[in-house]
């Protein structure tokens, strides 16, 4: 089922490639010891290296290199044991060095791939061309003063991974699925927090259109799109614009464009006379980056289980549906929580509680899986209380709500509130007798054939026992008692 846009002169295919900038998770910057935390006071996280002071020398952060290698391994990509940093030269007020230290001809990571899944269940591979390490620039604020721009260099020198895909995507959905998958892998690996609102992950979207079966036509680059939804919208808007240009007899010019999220259109960003000439050359401050193969293998051995593998394992070992396994592995933290609950217990029951009651509680309390109102250990203990007959399913829900409200473990709540399920046959029979005696008319109706009244009796007995009667035993006692002729 391929995606085409019908123009006025026939169908068009869309060709999409993404360049994703992912901020490396590290304490310090790529080439300095200044911190990377988001939202600090302006220019408080800047070293002399980051500010481009004369005579300062960059020294690379080993962890940033490791994060790039881990990401490469997670993308099934070649790791280049020999790579090199080049200077990318351009002038901008938030680039104090006058160049960005980047990798050009010799990136640290080469070809790899990502598998995406579409809503109709089809899976396909998107090729990764390369991943390289580079410095982020500072931040400009243009709206604080009528005639001045304000510059904050806190981001200057923070490590970025630029991850370039092949032009393998053919629809907005595929572009969105690719970015979502890439984000999920990065978050599983712990190499990028994937926070698109804070700009930790942003995409440049390359779009071109063509007639089915044709070679590639000229592409345009839509810069700095910062959500998955906007990527999908930008692809469609840009494709429609290009189709209109071609159909009116024009020619699409290669250029950089911006996506106007309010209007849902792309617009041209740079004029042609400013055409880029970055004059890359090897950075003389940095020798080549040579990695030890054994070190790379050590990183490979320590990689966490990735989402696809984890999902497949949940389906295979736990018998979960593809959908449930997908939901539970969407985030590493959710999967970790689920596995802690499921350990040694019924995985399907654990899955139902996590996806049902826990997710509802997270929503209601506006908390997340990192800081849940009920710990995995406590939820597991609650399941144990159901398994050993202390709690009925109904009582367990009640206990769970109390756990959400108080943060206390289930056993303590059961004790405090006397919620222990009543399994004592004598107590149940006494309640049954009392209910039947008080509803002699209904009993007569039931005996006359109105069998659906059985549910009414169960409800009355449970009510009389404050909801604590063991439902199976109550049913059994009622059936036995109603089966006898006399009341």
């Amino acid at each position, binding site marked *: 089922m391929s995606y085409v846009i019908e123009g006025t002169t026939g169908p068009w295919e869309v060709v999409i490639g993404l360049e994703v900038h992912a901020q490396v998770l590290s304490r*310090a910057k790529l080439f300095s010891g*200044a911190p990377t935390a988001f939202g600090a006071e302006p*220019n*408080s996280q800047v070293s002399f290296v980051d500010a481009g002071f004369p005579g300062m020398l960059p020294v690379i952060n080993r962890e940033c290199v490791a994060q790039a290698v881990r990401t490469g391994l997670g993308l099934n990509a070649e790791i280049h044991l020999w790579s090199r940093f080049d200077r990318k030269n351009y002038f901008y007020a938030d680039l104090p060095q006058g160049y960005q230290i980047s990798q050009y001809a010799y990136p640290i990571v080469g070809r790899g791939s990502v598998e995406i899944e579409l809503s109709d269940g089809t899976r396909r591979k998107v090729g990764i061309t390369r991943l390289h390490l580079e410095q982020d620039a500072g931040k400009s604020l243009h709206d604080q003063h009528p005639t001045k721009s304000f*510059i904050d*260099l806190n981001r200057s020198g923070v490590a970025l991974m630029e991850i370039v895909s092949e032009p393998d995507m053919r629809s907005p959905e595929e572009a969105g699925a690719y970015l979502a998958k890439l984000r999920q892998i990065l978050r599983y690996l712990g190499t990028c927090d994937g926070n698109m609102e804070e700009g930790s992950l942003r995409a440049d979207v390359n779009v071109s259109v063509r007639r089915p079966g044709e070679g590639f036509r000229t592409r345009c680059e839509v810069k700095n799109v910062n959500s998955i939804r906007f990527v999908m919208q930008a692809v469609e808007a840009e494709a429609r614009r290009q189709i209109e240009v071609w159909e009116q007899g024009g020619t699409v010019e290669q250029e950089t464009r911006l996506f106007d999220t309010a209007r849902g259109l792309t617009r041209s960003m740079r004029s042609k006379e400013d055409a880029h000439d970055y004059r890359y050359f090897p950075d003389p401050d940095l020798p080549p980056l040579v990695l030890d193969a054994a070190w790379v293998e050590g990183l490979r051995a320590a990689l966490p289980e990735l989402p696809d593998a984890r999902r497949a394992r949940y389906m295979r070992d736990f018998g979960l549906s593809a959908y449930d396994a997908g939901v539970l592995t969407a985030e590493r933290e959710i999967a970790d929580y689920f596995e802690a609950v499921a350990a040694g217990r019924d995985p399907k029951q654990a899955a139902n509680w996590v996806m049902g009651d826990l997710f509802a509680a997270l929503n209601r309390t506006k908390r997340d899986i990192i800081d849940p109102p009920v710990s995995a250990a406590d939820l597991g203990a609650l399941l144990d209380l159901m398994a050993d007959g202390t709690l009925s399913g109904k009582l367990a829900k009640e206990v769970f709500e109390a756990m959400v409200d108080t943060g206390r473990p289930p056993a303590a709540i059961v004790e405090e509130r006397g919620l222990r399920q009543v399994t004592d046959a004598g107590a149940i029979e006494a309640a049954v007798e009392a209910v039947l005696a008080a509803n002699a008319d209904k009993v007569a109706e039931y005996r006359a054939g109105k069998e659906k009244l059985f549910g009414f009796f169960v409800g009355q007995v449970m009510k009389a026992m404050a909801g604590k009667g063991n439902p199976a035993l109550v049913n059994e006692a009622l059936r036995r008692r109603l089966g006898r002729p006399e009341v």
Partner: protein
Amino acid sequence: MSLDQATVRRVAALARIRLSDADLPRVQGELNAILGWIEQLQAVDTEGVEPMAGGAPEGAAPMPMREDVVTEGGIADLILANAPDREGDYFAVPKVVE
């Protein structure tokens, strides 16, 4: 190889160096002298020699690395000390909007 005046103008523009028309022939001459010297270097036979990425032979000086530890920051006043203009702890520059 020699640079024509249009190329010299373009290189100057990329480097944000303002050249007057009067400066152009002098700068053109200087740059072409440098290129002439590079041409002399290119006469050396480097067949079979690996290109160098820096000033030291490969392996002579492995890239030094730092650990991922915060050791700097918190010196906004020193960072801003040479700024021609500032607003609070921001650098202030003439408005640049694309």
